[in-house]
């Protein structure tokens, strides 16, 4: 008798929960998987979306494990134009001030923006000069599988451009749109739908320091030009 085809053995095991004495651990688990799958109810398949503010609670507790309510941990808002008077800028580089703002906190809490001052001399190259960058964290409203993203503001001979390297699954019934938002998460500038080349010219006259939050939303194709409120990625330029 030829040895049994392992694929056939596994297929049979998905349909037969009764353990056999010669089951390997893997096969025993396949029986459990099959039994669970066959026992699935419509309720089981209808996974519930957590409330939108749940993540903020987790983020707050992780950021400040010893303090009580996460709402007390809102990071102070630092005026964006605050002169960065503490450290001398390194020559030829942007001076950056970083505040710890949990990626997470960016989801719901008002986050801190880094003050960015420039001493723009040289250092440019063919790809332009990176003047600020941000790491964007997926928010709870993101489609599962959305990964963290990286954004940068690049100065190409005086014209600024946002580059955004994001990996997002298709958004059913909508499209992704890129925004620059102010610290108060109130005023915002649309940079248009998510582009495959990841390059978004920043309109002349728009000061990224006034709109330091990079936000990606999912927009329903409803002709409504404003932000849908469904942000899926967010980070703060610094």
């Amino acid at each position, binding site marked *: 008798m030829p040895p049994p085809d392992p*694929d*056939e053995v*596994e*297929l049979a095991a*998905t*349909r037969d929960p009764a353990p056999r004495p010669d089951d390997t651990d*893997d096969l025993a*688990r*396949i029986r*459990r*998987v*099959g039994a*669970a*799958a*066959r*026992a*699935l*109810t419509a*309720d*089981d*398949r209808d*996974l*519930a*979306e*957590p*409330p939108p503010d*749940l*993540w903020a*609670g*987790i*983020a707050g*507790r*992780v950021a400040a*494990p010893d303090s009580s309510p996460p709402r007390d941990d809102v990071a102070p808002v630092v005026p964006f134009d605050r002169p960065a008077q503490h450290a001398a800028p390194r020559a030829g580089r942007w001076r950056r001030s970083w505040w710890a703002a949990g*990626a*997470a906190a960016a*989801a719901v809490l008002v986050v801190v923006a880094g003050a960015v001052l420039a001493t723009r001399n040289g250092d440019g190259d063919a790809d332009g000069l990176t003047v600020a960058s941000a*790491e964007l*964290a*997926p*928010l*709870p409203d*993101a489609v*599962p*599988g*959305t*990964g*963290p993203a990286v954004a940068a503001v690049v100065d190409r001979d005086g014209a600024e451009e946002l580059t955004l390297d994001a*990996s997002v699954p298709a958004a059913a019934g909508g499209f992704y749109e890129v925004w620059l938002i102010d610290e108060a998460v109130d005023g915002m500038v649309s940079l248009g739908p998510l582009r495959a080349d990841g390059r978004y010219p920043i309109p002349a006259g728009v000061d990224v320091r006034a709109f330091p939050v990079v936000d990606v939303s999912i927009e329903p194709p409803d002709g409504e030009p404003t932000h849908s409120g469904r942000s899926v990625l967010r980070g703060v330029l610094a």
Partner: protein
Amino acid sequence: MRRDATGDTDDARAAADAELELAFAKGGDDALAAVYARYGRVVYSLARRTVGPEVAEEVTQDVFVAAWSSRDRYDPGRGSLAGWLIGVARHKVTDALRSQQRVTARVERAASVAGGTTATPPEVDQVAERLMVADGLAALRPEVREVVELAFYSDLTHEQIAERTGRPLGTVKSHIRRSLATLRRHLEGLDASA
């Protein structure tokens, strides 16, 4: 068209999951946010189904906070992060139920009423396994899921599934094999966090 390109998309998904597991284990920036974005729904659903909607939010928070603080105990070599998280959730749910039951028991003693209706831990185990499989199935590409569901819910042979779905036999077998391996690894993760 990449109708049968099992390679590309499935590999990319597997690679993304593996990357997420590694980032979590290493405590990388934003890793917890990404893990929550991916698995918040299944953890919250388990909590909702077992301890009820009022307590579910708190339990879900407890799960992710506990998972993050004990992330060095998660070993991708011993199972999936999804399974491990569900395992952590199972513990938290069981704790919450026990404390509910203690309260209920006191109330019942006072009122001389017997019995209780809250879920008992064995039910939690079953719900946990079912929701994990439900989430695992939901994460499959639709064309893969179609094949895998026929494996679970029909009595068709591989050849018949191939015929029914119009896909080559080799593709059918590989979809089933890979999906079973993924789902089995979720259970390994669950067992590892026991």
